[in-house]
């Protein structure tokens, strides 16, 4: 296998006049968790379908686990696991019957199948519910079960299409932890599409941002945050008069200043130092009690990327 689990070179897919995926080139290292971010309709799911060979490329080329998506799609599907937009579980069948069916598809023998089902369901806290019909499980449980199904045959790569969509926050956190722990434990590469930025920030080693079919940024969440996110510093105290605010606003590293509930919110350029600004405020007569230096979140970086791209178009 190559060092990259996924490697695409200017892959393109059109639906009539609409270019759903526009010359996307990316590389995902084996064993990493890659987050594919983008708003609804950005081209995330179409990219995933192209990588699975479920849709044909209109241009470019791609390999997944060293297999060409255009000519070796069956081999890709043999070695990958998926959780697509819907959990894909058969509602009338029990959880065990569902997993058993998928285990048979991947030619796991009866003993390994049952051992593996038990291992995954115990890890995910679903073992006691294995004989329950899927329709009787909560959405969170079904998503977990679908993750178990995706990992059942120990694939080298799993595609997860918005796995936490529609889950309550508690279930989403639990699912995120399960994805992380299982991926690390089994050394599986994860390709995760999401528009949940907090999820991507916490789980992913690398993220790619797609908008209107075009890949507009790729990097580690921290790098993207630094590249485009603005740091917010909160200053608590008294005496934030007009003079002090005007002095702050005149500083080149200060993007914006606002007063909220009696404290200051100062948006700074990436990498800007806080100490000179505190000194400036003190000189202007303010009394400082506390300074909280924040970091720009991936969400802010994402919004900035979307805005910049929108302006660029």
């Amino acid at each position: 296998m190559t060092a990259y689990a996924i490697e695409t070179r200017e892959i393109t897919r059109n639906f009539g006049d609409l270019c759903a995926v526009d010359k996307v080139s990316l590389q995902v290292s084996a064993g990493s968790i890659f987050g594919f971010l983008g708003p609804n309709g950005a081209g995330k799911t179409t990219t995933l379908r192209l990588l699975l060979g479920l849709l044909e490329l209109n241009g470019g080329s791609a390999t997944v686990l060293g297999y060409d998506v255009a000519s070796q799609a069956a081999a890709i599907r043999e070695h990958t696991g998926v959780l697509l937009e819907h959990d894909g579980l058969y509602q009338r069948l029990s959880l065990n019957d569902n997993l058993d069916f998928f285990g048979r598809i991947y030619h796991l023998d009866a003993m390994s199948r049952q051992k593996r089902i038990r291992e995954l369901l115990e890890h995910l806290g679903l073992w006691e519910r294995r004989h329950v019909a899927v329709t009787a499980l909560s959405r969170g449980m079904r998503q977990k079960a679908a993750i178990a199904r995706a990992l059942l045959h120990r694939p080298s790569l799993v595609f997860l299409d918005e796995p936490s969509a529609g889950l309550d926050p508690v279930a989403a956190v639990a699912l995120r932890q399960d994805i992380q722990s299982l991926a690390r434990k089994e050394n599986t590469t994860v390709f995760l599409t999401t528009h949940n930025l907090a999820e991507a920030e916490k789980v992913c080693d690398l993220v790619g941002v797609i908008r209107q079919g075009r890949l507009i940024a790729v990097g580690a969440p921290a790098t993207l945050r630094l590249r485009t996110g603005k740091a917010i510093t909160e200053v608590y105290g008294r005496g934030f008069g007009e003079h002090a605010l005007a002095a702050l606003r005149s500083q080149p590293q200060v993007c914006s200043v606002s007063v909220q509930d009696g404290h200051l919110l100062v948006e700074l350029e990436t990498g800007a130092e806080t100490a000179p600004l505190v000194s400036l405020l003190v000189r202007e007569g303010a009394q400082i009690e506390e300074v909280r230096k924040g970091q720009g979140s991936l969400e802010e970086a994402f919004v900035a990327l979307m805005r910049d791209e929108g302006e660029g178009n």
Partner: protein
Amino acid sequence: MEDIRTIVVKELKEFWMARGSLRSRLLSFLPMVIVFGIYLPLQQREAWTEIPAVAGIWFTMLPLVLAGGTAADSFAGERERHTLETLLATRLSDRDIFLGKVLATVIYCVGIVWGCALVGLISLNVTRGPAPFFMYGAPVLALILVGSILVSLLMTAVGVLVSLRAASVRAAAQYFGFATLAIFIGLPLIVQALPDSAKAALDRAVLGANWTAVGLTVAAAILAIDALLLSIGIARFQRTRLILE
């Protein structure tokens, strides 16, 4: 073959589980068993086991009713329940998925036909009194064993073809219903429209026919149509098209 068997087992489990509790599942088969396994055999007695036009025709017609709805559910149902794309994203080949679904429907229909035929035979023999032991005659047996398979395959192939392109199970069932209705209404209408001389010739041909030869010819024709429809189905079953639709 292993992959086809995997699909068949899953489909049969789904057919069975679709009927709710065990009681509901058993009850859902009860009307067919009562009509084809008890009422009609006891009403017809010897004719049921000896005259092809009686039991044979009933048992060949039964798949017409059973196969359509079941086959219509095969792909349209998976699409409606959002399981199709996950199935298509597995290692299974297009051909194995298609044939697995066809085979499951055929097994389901033929199983019911053979089950009812067996219950009919048991009913007749349990109530035979001093009469000799009842057993299906060769032509009737051939219709039950072979005719049910051929007709099940025919109707399943039509149902699956419709299901491949239908957006929902309801739409698939409607299209299938129209197709079946067209055959049932169309054929008598065609015969009605024939000139009197042609009708008379047809009557003479029917009365003087060698039914073994006719049966074999019809069976061969249905087999050929089955093969053609299955080939069309396999050719039309393409992941990309199914995903896009």
